[in-house]
């Protein structure tokens, strides 16, 4: 019985190659503002892929693609905090829960469980997301969550602790389309 179950699972994951949606223009906005200093940055070239058969998805972005209002902040972000020459990418490996039918247009309040890799550190995460299955078959995923810099070994020195928030707000908008 268990063998059959395992085989079935294997079969499922192999079969799954058909239903994949991708995104090359996922927007990510990060905000580490404090009362003293406005610190926010955007990028709109994160990539993502969603397998609707297995509810699994992966997103990845290049740290150096973030654009800040202040060029010096961008330099410090890359040089002092993210060490982006050493750790150029951030990755989210996700399992999406809460969607009952990927083919019927609807909006779901769902969740993501998975692993986020930032600054070379892998951490289990659980994030609330809003998932919209659009009429054209594409899927829009929006999410707002917080990242604690200390969890990923990103040190904020005492000298600037009043200027840089230790909990960074992240907003993601990703529309994944079929090939």
């Amino acid at each position, binding site marked *: 019985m268990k063998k059959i179950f*395992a085989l079935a699972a294997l079969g499922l994951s192999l079969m799954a190659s058909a239903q994949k949606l*991708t995104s090359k223009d996922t927007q990510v906005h990060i905000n580490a503002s404090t009362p003293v200093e406005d610190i926010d940055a955007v990028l709109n070239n994160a990539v993502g892929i969603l397998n609707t058969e297995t509810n699994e998805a992966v997103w990845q972005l290049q740290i*150096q693609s973030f654009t800040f209002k202040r060029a010096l902040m961008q330099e410090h972000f*890359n040089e002092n905090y993210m060490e982006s*020459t050493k750790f150029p990418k951030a990755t989210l490996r996700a399992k999406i829960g809460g969607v009952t039918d990927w083919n019927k247009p609807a909006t779901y309040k769902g969740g993501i469980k998975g692993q986020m890799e930032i600054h070379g550190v892998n951490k289990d995460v659980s994030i609330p997301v809003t998932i919209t299955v659009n009429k054209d078959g594409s899927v829009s995923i929006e999410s707002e969550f917080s990242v604690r810099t200390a969890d990923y070994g990103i040190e904020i*020195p005492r*000298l600037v602790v009043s200027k840089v928030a230790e909990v960074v707000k992240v907003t993601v908008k990703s529309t994944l389309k079929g090939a």
Partner: protein
Amino acid sequence: MRKQVLAFLALSSLGLWAQDDLLAELNAMAPEAPKQFAFATFKGTKLVNGSTVEMPGAGVGQFIVGHRFGALNDKPLYNLFGMDVAQIRFEYSYNPVAWLNVGLGRSSGSKTYDGFTKVRLLHQSKGGKGLNSPVSVVWYSSMTLTTVPFTDGFDHFFTDRLAYAHQLMVASKLNDKVSVQVAPTLVHFNLVPLASDRNDQLGLGFSGRYKLTQRMALTAETMFRQTPFAGTHMPLSIGLDLETGGHVFQFHVTNARSMADPQWMMQTPGSWANGDLFLGFNISRVFTHVKPKELR
């Protein structure tokens, strides 16, 4: 029970593989990694007196105040290690585009006004498509105008007050900690002390930094000269860069007290051997005048 756990583990590891497969597909989808340009080769656009290949980003202006105190060997206790007397230089520069920096400065030494331009010709890079450069190359030109009265009793042309410095700065960020810069230098003086002195002076500038921590770096700069003026010495400065968010503080000890280019490069009267040393600091602050278009 144990079998169930095993089955669950097998399943969850399958899931993990599937995600790694997805990741591989994702990488196949966007195969070319973007070209990475070297950033923060140095913390400041100046190291001590000399310029570096760094400049503020596009649409960003930068204000620098430089202080050089009195000589350490001039009654150090009475003058509190030179703190009682200081020369000062202000500078403001602006980057209309990422590769061009223009600025104005004024030093109290010889009451010198200056204007300067920096043009980035090559940016150190790695990865991505196309050719990569192991070095950054920046052209630097400045002009100075001294406004103290002449005391030699002769009539002078206005142009006698002008001097020019040109540098081809070639820098490389060798690794996270070490950056070096070499700068072939040409200084032209419209007026030189002696008829036998050359108006065009060649030099070779060397600068380096070693990062002690993420926000602190040791720096040094010097200038070898081909035909030094009589009574002048090779400038040598050793400094410490401290970075605090929007500011860079640079503390240093140097034998070159003048901050205007031709003067510190070619006309440094004091020497390390005689203890003619000066403490000093630079403080910089950047101002974003035009936001990047992604955030407008």
